[in-house]
């Protein structure tokens, strides 16, 4: 199940977004303060984290930087009413946000930004899975080679047995 975290100090923004995301079938977690949002990063793995910019105890960029450390794979978005360039640049450079969305928003824009973030998250995950798979297979090959080497030193020639076309071992009387 895809999990999405929303952080905004304004509760009504959270309910509007909840309504908006409900039909999508994602698991949506909302937090109206940064402390609890931070705490939940220990218990849940999020695909997407969307944060407000201006909040009482920490700004959204600071929060997303924390979130990036804890969950580097979660794709980060900012949803802000504070439309100045400075905060936008800060968000993009420091917290490496995927998209900067502004309030008021168009519902379909938010949805498509989240969908593309989820795609990105899934790509990252798939990538990691493939890399792990690759590593695992390399390890297996290495282990097998080592085993062959060991057999060869213990029984010289054993790894070079001859087989016929059916794969049966051919024994010769040479030795």
């Amino acid at each position, binding site marked *: 199940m895809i999990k999405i975290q929303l952080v905004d100090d*304004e509760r*009504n*923004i959270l*309910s*509007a*977004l909840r*309504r*908006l995301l409900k*039909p999508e079938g994602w698991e949506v977690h909302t937090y109206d303060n940064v402390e609890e949002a931070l705490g939940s990063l220990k218990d849940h793995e999020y695909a997407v984290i969307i944060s407000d910019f*201006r*909040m*009482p*105890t920490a700004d959204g960029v600071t929060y997303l930087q924390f979130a990036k450390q804890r969950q580097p794979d979660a794709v980060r978005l900012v949803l802000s*009413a*504070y*439309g*100045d360039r400075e905060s936008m640049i800060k968000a993009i450079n420091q917290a490496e946000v995927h998209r900067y969305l*502004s*309030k*008021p*928003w*168009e*519902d379909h824009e*938010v949805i498509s930004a989240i969908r593309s973030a989820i795609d990105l998250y899934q790509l990252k995950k798939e990538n990691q899975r493939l890399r792990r798979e690759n590593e695992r297979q390399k390890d297996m090959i290495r282990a097998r080679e080592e085993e062959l080497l060991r057999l060869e030193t213990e029984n010289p020639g054993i790894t070079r047995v001859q087989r016929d076309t059916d794969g049966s071992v051919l024994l010769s009387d040479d030795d």
Partner: protein
Amino acid sequence: MSNASAPQSEQELLNARLEQANQQLLQSEKLAAIGQLAAGVAHEINNPVGYVYSNLQTLDNYLNDLFRLTEAVDNARCIEDLRQIKQNIDYDFLKDDLRDLLAESREGIERVKTIIAAMKDFSHIEEEEFKPADLHRGIETTLNVVNNELKYKAEVVREFGDLPEVECIISQINQVIMNLLVNAAHAIETFGRITIRTRQKGSTVVVEVQDTGRGISPEHRHRIFEPFFTTKPVGKGTGLGLSLSFNIIEKHQGTLDVESAPGEGTCFRITLPIVHPDTDNE
């Protein structure tokens, strides 16, 4: 006689010029303050507009669902079909959520309304008349305008006493209170408390704005009312707030005092006569 009247009129002329210069200064400080606030106010408005706007889009979807149900009344072959549609559109959720959606949206519109009303109250610069006014209302108006500057910096505590109406130019008094509140917020490093206290004291009223900020160092203490004295970086401070506030209060025949303990906080105290002495004479 004519000897005495010549310098007299010259002095009057000078006085008039000084008054005019003061007015201009007041106006420019006001514009600077409004400029600083504009970004904040936009933020304050974009939040409620943001969720109201999104809720309306959701409402559109909800309505489509409900119409699907009501239109099926004519077409459905049996009651079972209707039940099926009702279940499909998650009717029970929709019914509850519609109420919340409307209540929250109304709350948002109310907030926008309050902010706009406050801005209007606030920008009555042309109003130059001394009139009995409700200071508490003025303080609330001002708080609405600067809410965005304050809410991330401090918890605002109101300790209001009983106040009679005070003869004053309320738009100017609002501006003084705004200056004091914004200064208080600027003085707070992370998060603190701003207390607004009012009380009547004999024939005067007292308004205090106290903060838990960094305080004013003794070497700055005697300079803060000077025009253009500021310890803030360019763009954040004009150094005009307190000097103009001082002028405004002086014109009201009141006093503006300050007590400050570095590292602990600062308290500005406005004292105003309930009846403006000049109008008393009329």
